[in-house]
């Protein structure tokens, strides 16, 4: 019986944690199995939940969010027979029973940045992040590089919703930020802001501009008004881990980028009319180049700064 531990943002954040939940749900639906789950309410519960699930015989124990890296690292040794998975985290040495799964968000963001720049009529594109943490700057940085690649003169307007975890869940502010960006000329906004993005997409639709969703495919939320979504397949990662079960391979680091289809851009019936063939071709070309290594998208982490935008 696998277990899934959500980060403090909560299970239904409409993006990251929720994607993990969907993956688990899909596994449950397909196999008829059951899984344990918990939404944390405090930092101290991270270790507690890991231990309690491990003691209860759950295997694997999957955690979402980089904040779990440290607790997983310290707990793993006590439960050698349990497999632990952490999504988004990083640790210097990965214990034998731990598997880390990371995503190349900047690559996916690069592609949607290109799409934004290509469909922008005003020459200004917007980015709205959730809480101001490096991970979100990482998203924004890829996006800016993509946009600049298409149009070096493009103006990028970026805002972070806030500095506390409440920023993941503040659609009011998301909405106002969208309006503010519109008044600065933006006609496309990319929301990498969890639940806050709901407000961004809503306002963009209300005000007649296009938006870009994140993590899950959010194109359907406002059909014809969402340019595309930068998908981050947390659901696949969770689903695969659960499928592998106790037999899963551990002790290493899985990176899911464009090549692995861990990140990408969404094209479906909701946004097909918005994506011209040229745009599609250009993006697919860039995608191939990134996969082949001909094109390098700089990660914000490399030296905590972004070549295309000054956060």
């Amino acid at each position, binding site marked *: 019986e696998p277990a899934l531990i959500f980060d403090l943002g909560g299970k239904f954040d409409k993006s990251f944690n929720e994607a993990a939940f969907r993956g688990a749900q899909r596994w449950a639906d397909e196999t008829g199995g059951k899984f344990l789950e918990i939404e944390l309410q405090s930092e101290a519960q991270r270790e507690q939940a890991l231990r309690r699930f491990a003691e209860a015989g759950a295997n694997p124990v999957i955690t979402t969010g980089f904040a779990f890296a440290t607790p997983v690292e310290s707990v793993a040794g006590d439960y050698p027979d349990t497999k632990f998975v952490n999504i988004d985290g990083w640790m210097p040495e990965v214990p034998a029973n731990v598997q880390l799964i990371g995503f190349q968000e900047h690559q996916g963001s690069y592609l949607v940045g290109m799409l934004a720049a290509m469909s922008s009529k005003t020459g200004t594109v917007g980015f709205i992040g959730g809480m101001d943490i490096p991970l979100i700057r990482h998203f924004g940085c890829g996006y800016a590089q993509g946009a600049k690649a298409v149009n070096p003169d493009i103006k990028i307007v970026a805002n972070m919703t806030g500095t506390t975890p409440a920023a993941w869940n503040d659609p*009011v502010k998301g909405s106002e930020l969208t309006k503010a960006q519109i008044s600065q000329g933006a006609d496309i906004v990319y929301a990498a802001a969890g639940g806050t993005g709901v407000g961004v997409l809503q306002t963009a639709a209300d005000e007649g501009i296009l938006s870009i969703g994140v993590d899950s495919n959010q194109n359907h939320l406002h059909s014809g008004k969402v340019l595309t979504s930068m998908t981050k397949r947390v659901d696949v990662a969770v689903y695969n881990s659960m499928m592998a079960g106790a037999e899963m391979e551990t002790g290493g680091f899985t990176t899911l980028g464009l090549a692995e289809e861990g990140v990408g851009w969404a094209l479906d019936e909701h946004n097909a009319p918005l994506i011209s063939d040229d745009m599609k071709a250009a993006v697919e070309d860039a995608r191939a180049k990134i996969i082949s290594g001909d094109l390098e998208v700089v990660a914000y982490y490399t030296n905590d700064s972004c070549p295309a935008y000054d956060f």
Partner: protein
Amino acid sequence: MDFLTLLQLLDTTVRLATPLLLACLAGLYSERAGIFDIGLEGKMLAAAFFSAAFAYSTGSVWLGLLAGIGVSLVLSGIHGLASITFRGNQLISGLAITMLAGGMTVLIAQDWFKQGGRTPQLEGAARFEPITLPFAETLREVPFIGPLYYELISGHPILVYIAFALVPLTWWILFRTRFGLRLRAVGENPASVDTAGVSVVALRYSAVMICGVLCGLAGAYLATALQAGFVKDMTAGRGYIALAALIFAKWRPWYALWATLLFGLFQALELRPDLIQQVIGVKVQVQLLGALPYILTVVILAGFVGKAIPPRAGGEPYVKER
């Protein structure tokens, strides 16, 4: 900064000031009657949830509004019970109500909608849509007046106009009617009202209930006009800012308007780091920007309010027999 940008900034200000204004006026009625209320936040939050939930399930934003007002009145009733009938500590009661609203809204939302403490997105008649005032389109090209009218004055949901209309109405009620006279008296010296043969309890309850109605409007505005649905903690401290504005306004209706507009402007500026950079010439840290409304609140309270004399009987339960 050009004129249009300024108008857009002010437009945002108006949108963001509206919930503050409604909550501030709500607090004004309550505190003028001698009942301090730091539970504005909680009442707004509960009203936001219930208005969104009912608007969603009935498809009518007006029914949603009623539900929002209803739950806010229930919480007001609890506050009244604690602070009028049982002469409890008003600050603590307000705090408890805010916590209660924070927990209950999510609990109920999860139970009803299973979307992690939010309501589904509202559409169509389940939302307050912006109203275009008469002649807005025709006047649009007239220099200065046109854009001012079109961008700033026209195009808000009905609740914004109600909120602004409430300012003169409140002034009139407080200073021109019998009810207002008694309300102010009961906040200054309840014994004077009591010996004049008027019920202190009834007056205070009615003030607290008016406060409930206005918080209900504020909450409904957040969830069904400013936004299209409820998410947890969506008031995000607005109740407290409204209280600070109330002190800044020295418990007067017109001042309350200016104070909430000022705080609205702070919040609007937070969204426009580009403008700040343009005006002051340096890039401001995001964290500083986020904390700006709160810092300015402290600065204003410390520096400019001077001696804001609250209603003299404020915060104290009326005790006849010890």
